[in-house]
């Protein structure tokens, strides 16, 4: 029989509500697992066992008293460490914020608590969410549960690894250029980047505002839809929040894709895509055809400009966003006598930020500077328009677009870290959804000959998360990847 920590949120919430198990037992079961595997996986920056157990007991009391509990009652959850949690360390995996304790909860955290979810800790990530491997964390790399010598993907690597290793049942990540979908693909779990504006960013430590969304990481499509239903919705505290009605997305889960038109962009299988990934994802696409979907080729010609456009925009926004780290209100500051503000500030920012963060701030400053603004930043924004037009056009003929999430399988820790450009290239298939604001999900799609996970990405038109869930669910029901567990002892 599976242990409690191995169950899905759907199964667990039901057992807790029926009083077959207590929320406390579930939380303790996760911490037992954490104690066993965390020294190998290193998915967390901070664990809050005492507080989690206390919260679980409160939920058990409510249930015993017949009081209403939420949709996540007793479900153990990890929250990425760039999402503010009241009175709990929130470091962004950076030296700069190593001691930062937010005085408030992000809206998404408030919503999870309101629905009875129990937060077990803060998940490791690439520093300031800048990376695809979770190697740039100030606190050390997270490792892939399927192969500890490989990266878990990033930047939400801790969130995905914790879910894959059964240390938690659900997790929140954030996705600026693929940071949820990449680790979901690399750890064989489900991850969604929703339509821009559907999830409040209030309390998310900003990296590139116009691109990023908080989103769910889960063991199943149902769980993914469940957590998304909880965290999505209008929030007046986020001025880019879209006014929509709250929806229960679990209602859209029917294992039926008959007649659905799926487009396969030829550009998703370009020269950078590995043969093994190509083979597995095509097998997945054929599976969807077997289930009744109608496939034809799509074309997104501007996709080849994704990387420069995405990085120029992200770096520019980052250079402006990260200017706030002046060591005055919060963050790293050395006690030093003398020197003017600018010099003191520059020295602290050198020590407080790691290499990749500094690279992006400096290149972003360059792209926004006089004489280069038109050449780099404005040009990237215009290319963004072209990529968006390609998507708009493609969705006139298709319900969803399907392809690989990542062009290559998980690589070795240390393999690419000295080569920033090689790491940037990993975002080539995920960043278009951020540039366009379209929703995209990554679902498990099999394993390479080395037993490393590969994910399939399903992209839908804006506000059609229901379609990503529907196709993902049908695929999940027709395959057996969900039940496979990493070989961690």
């Amino acid at each position: 029989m599976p242990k409690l920590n191995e169950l899905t949120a759907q199964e667990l919430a039901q057992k807790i509500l029926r009083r077959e198990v207590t929320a406390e037992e579930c939380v303790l079961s996760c911490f037992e697992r954490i104690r066993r595997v965390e020294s190998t996986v290193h998915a967390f920056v901070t664990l809050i066992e005492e507080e989690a157990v206390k919260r679980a007991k409160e939920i058990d009391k409510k249930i015993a008293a017949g009081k209403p509990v939420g949709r996540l009652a007793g479900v153990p959850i990890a929250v990425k460490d760039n999402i503010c949690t009241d009175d709990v360390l929130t470091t962004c995996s950076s030296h700069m914020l190593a001691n930062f304790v937010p005085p408030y909860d992000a809206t998404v955290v408030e919503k999870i608590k309101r629905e009875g979810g129990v937060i077990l800790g803060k998940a490791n990530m690439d520093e300031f969410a800048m990376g695809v491997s979770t190697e740039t964390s100030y606190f050390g790399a997270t490792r892939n549960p399927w192969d500890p010598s490989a990266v878990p993907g990033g930047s939400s690597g801790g969130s995905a690894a914790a879910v894959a290793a059964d240390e938690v049942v659900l997790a929140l990540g954030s996705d600026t250029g693929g940071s949820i979908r990449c680790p979901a693909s690399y750890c064989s779990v489900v991850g969604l980047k929703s339509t821009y504006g559907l999830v409040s960013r209030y309390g998310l430590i900003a990296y590139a505002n116009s691109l990023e969304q908080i989103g769910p990481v889960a063991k199943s499509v149902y769980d993914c839809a469940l957590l998304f239903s909880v965290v999505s919705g209008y929030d007046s505290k986020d001025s880019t929040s879209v006014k929509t009605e709250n929806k229960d997305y679990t209602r859209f889960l029917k294992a039926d894709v008959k007649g659905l038109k799926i487009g396969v962009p030829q550009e998703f299988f370009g020269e950078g895509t590995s043969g093994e990934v190509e083979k597995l994802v095509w097998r997945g696409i054929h599976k969807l055809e077997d289930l009744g979907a109608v496939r034809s080729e799509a074309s997104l010609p501007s996709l080849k400009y994704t990387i420069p456009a995405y990085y120029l925009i992200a770096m520019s926004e980052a250079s402006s966003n990260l200017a706030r780290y002046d060591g005055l209100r919060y963050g790293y500051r050395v006690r030093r006598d003398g020197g003017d503000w600018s010099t003191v500030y520059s020295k602290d920012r050198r020590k407080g930020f790691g290499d990749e963060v500094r690279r992006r701030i400096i290149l972003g400053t360059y792209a926004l500077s006089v004489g280069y603004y038109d050449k780099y930043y404005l040009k990237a924004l215009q290319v963004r328009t072209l990529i968006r037009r390609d998507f708009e056009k493609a969705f006139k003929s298709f319900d969803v677009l399907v392809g690989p999430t990542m062009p290559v399988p998980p690589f070795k820790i240390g393999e690419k870290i000295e080569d920033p450009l090689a790491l940037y290239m990993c975002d080539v298939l995920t960043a278009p959804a951020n540039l366009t604001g379209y929703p995209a999900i990554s679902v498990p799609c099999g394993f390479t000959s080395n037993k490393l996970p590969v994910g399939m990405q399903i992209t839908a038109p804006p506000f059609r998360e229901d379609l990503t869930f529907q196709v993902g669910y049908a695929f999940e029901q027709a395959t057996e990847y969900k039940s496979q567990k990493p070989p961690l002892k």
Partner: protein
Amino acid sequence: MNKRHISKEEVEHIAWLARIELSEQEKARFTEQFNRILDYFKKIDEVDTKKIPPTYHVLNLTNVYREDKVTPSLPPKEVLKNAPKKEKRFFRAPRIV
């Protein structure tokens, strides 16, 4: 690498504008990396964007207004709790002039 896009002096200047100190070794390393990156980024030069408007934001939002209503805010003690240096109810800043 065919062409140098950015010199070490420029990197030094931009880093100063961004208020990030770099060691001599870092200046050299970053300059080399930036040139490789910019060399790849120049790919977008080939796109004809003369008549293409920029997409700053996918939602096409302009200004978002709300009622000017007073709502509870954090107490000063909470606001100051993460400040590396403070005095009474103030953040303590280094000398500016």
